[in-house]
């Protein structure tokens, strides 16, 4: 039986500590990990908690991120509650096994502390790794601050382990901007935290000798398509309602409310930025300041990135006249992902907003409030003109000559 840790109602934690405390409170059975900056403290803290008797679990040291996720897959298939953490190059090395985890329908939780992917090598936060994961069949939650990183871990376990879902989930947070930034985090007691998620109920676990099953099978054209379609069916039909259910339950439990699509001052907004991570909160502050000057502006934050909340996003954007999609990842060869997803969400609707794209913050480059004011000024010009007054894709915070495309 693990020891209880006494927490204050509000602890000053960075995003990494917040995530690792959640892993401790849900009593993860196995963490197989190969630590990488800036996610290192998540698994380091879990190892510390385990060694000091605060978790009845197993920390497995492995030789690479590929092996880390492989270890997690084995432990999850065997019937354990399993989690790990990674970033950047480590995430990239894990990609092959991410598809195995989702294809085998194993409810593993992966904390991804978002970081740039080299070359050039860079340890700071952008969304390159998060974007890389988006076709891998995992549920992807996005935290904007340490409180979110704590809360969304509980929600992720609750959703992923649901027998109607049985899909792995990632909880993303911005490298350094969240992971190494200490802020007040409202805590649950160990008992409350565990009770929200409950005992792990394995399904088709390998070590159930009365009901033997096969994991990691080969299927050729006879069955592969059906397996993939069934996996997509679960992600597309079961996941969003279960996430909403978990958000509702969490709000009842803690008073803290999460939404598939987060909005701030959007109801009567004419100009809106859509973004993810810490930028959402900074943009909220800018919106409050611009509202005081009479600009009808708002922010939309993507909370659940996969499955993509297509209908919910179309609904919140339906009356908006100008939209900026802010992508913190270089799309290399096209417009940013958020631009494409928003365009796809609105294309068959009556909404005819002017949509433009901004690439920002690569490798941890600061997104300042002044930058955001500049974007809203562009949106005002677009709205007044009824068409883009700038290139479709621009760069924000880039030194040297202005760069834009399309």
């Amino acid at each position, binding site marked *: 039986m693990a020891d209880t840790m006494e927490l204050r109602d509000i602890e*000053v934690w960075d995003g990494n500590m917040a995530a690792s405390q959640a892993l401790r409170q849900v009593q993860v059975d196995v963490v197989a990990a190969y630590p990488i900056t800036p996610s290192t403290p998540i698994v380091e803290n879990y190892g510390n908690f385990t060694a000091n008797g605060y978790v009845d679990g197993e920390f497995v040291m492995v030789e690479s991120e590929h092996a880390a996720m492989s270890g997690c897959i084995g432990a999850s298939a065997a019937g354990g509650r399993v989690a790990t953490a990674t970033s950047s190059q480590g995430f990239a090395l894990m990609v092959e096994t991410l598809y195995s985890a989702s294809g085998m329908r194993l409810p593993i939780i992966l904390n991804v502390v978002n970081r740039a992917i080299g070359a050039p090598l860079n340890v700071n936060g952008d969304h390159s790794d998060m974007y890389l994961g988006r076709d891998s069949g995992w549920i992807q939650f996005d935290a904007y601050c340490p409180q979110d990183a704590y809360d969304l871990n509980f929600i992720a376990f609750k959703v992923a382990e649901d027998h109607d879902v049985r899909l792995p989930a990632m909880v993303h947070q911005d490298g*350094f901007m969240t992971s190494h930034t200490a802020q007040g985090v409202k805590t649950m007691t160990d008992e409350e935290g565990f009770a929200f998620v409950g005992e792990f109920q394995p399904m088709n676990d390998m070590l159930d000798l009365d009901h033997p099953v096969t994991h990691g099978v080969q299927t050729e054209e006879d069955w592969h398509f059906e397996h993939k379609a069934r996996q997509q069916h679960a992600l597309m039909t079961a996941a969003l309602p279960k996430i909403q259910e978990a958000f509702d339950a969490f709000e009842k439990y803690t008073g803290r409310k999460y939404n598939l699509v987060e909005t701030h001052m959007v109801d009567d907004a004419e100009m809106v930025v859509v973004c993810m991570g810490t930028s959402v909160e900074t943009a909220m502050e800018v919106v409050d300041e611009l509202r005081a000057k009479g600009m009808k502006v708002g922010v939309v934050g993507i909370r659940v990135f996969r499955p993509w909340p297509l209908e919910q996003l179309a609904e919140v954007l339906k009356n908006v006249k100008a939209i900026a999609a802010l992508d913190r990842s270089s799309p290399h060869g096209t417009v940013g992902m958020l631009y494409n997803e928003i365009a796809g969400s609105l294309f068959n609707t009556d909404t005819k907003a002017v949509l433009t794209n901004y690439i920002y913050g690569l490798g941890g480059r600061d997104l300042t409030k002044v930058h955001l004011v500049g974007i809203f000024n562009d949106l005002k010009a677009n709205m007044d003109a009824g068409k883009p007054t700038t290139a479709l894709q621009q760069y924000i915070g880039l030194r040297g000559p202005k760069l834009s495309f399309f």
Partner: protein
Amino acid sequence: MLEIRWHSRAGQGAVTGAKGLADVVSTTGKHVQAFAFYGSAKRGAAMTAYNRVDDKMIMNHEKFMAPDYVLVIDPALVYIADFTANEKESTVYIITTHMTTAELIASQPKLEGKKVFTVDCIKISQETIGKAIPNTPMLGALMKVSGMYEMDFFKENMIRVLKKLPQKIIDANMIAIQRAYDEVK
């Protein structure tokens, strides 16, 4: 919103100092933020750390800051780091040095006409803690200059923040904090 920027060398404890301060301030019901610029910093490299304090939830995550207080915990950084970056007219400087405030300003003309306080956090930490860890004494000096909290309240909370350290080290830190509080000019 109160904003503080720390100038330090990696290894001198600015991050710990910033997080410790955030922890203490948080117990009074205020909202806090503590962060740093890391890069691939090596021990001894110049670095910055930051605090924000507000009565309402802090939503701003930009790294840009026009600080109310600049805390310099390594004496050489006033000559090599851009420690006056984005300053306001009201910015207060608390600087670790063995010099008097007048001598320091004479050696670094950028400080002329500014609100400058000096304290020798390096010497204080060497004489109390036994090594040059100038972060906790700087917090003592900040308490004096800012009048943020009563010393007893602050020390009581710092004991909790430092609780994982051996008692001897905690006691030495308390003496260091008090000395910097008394000696800052």
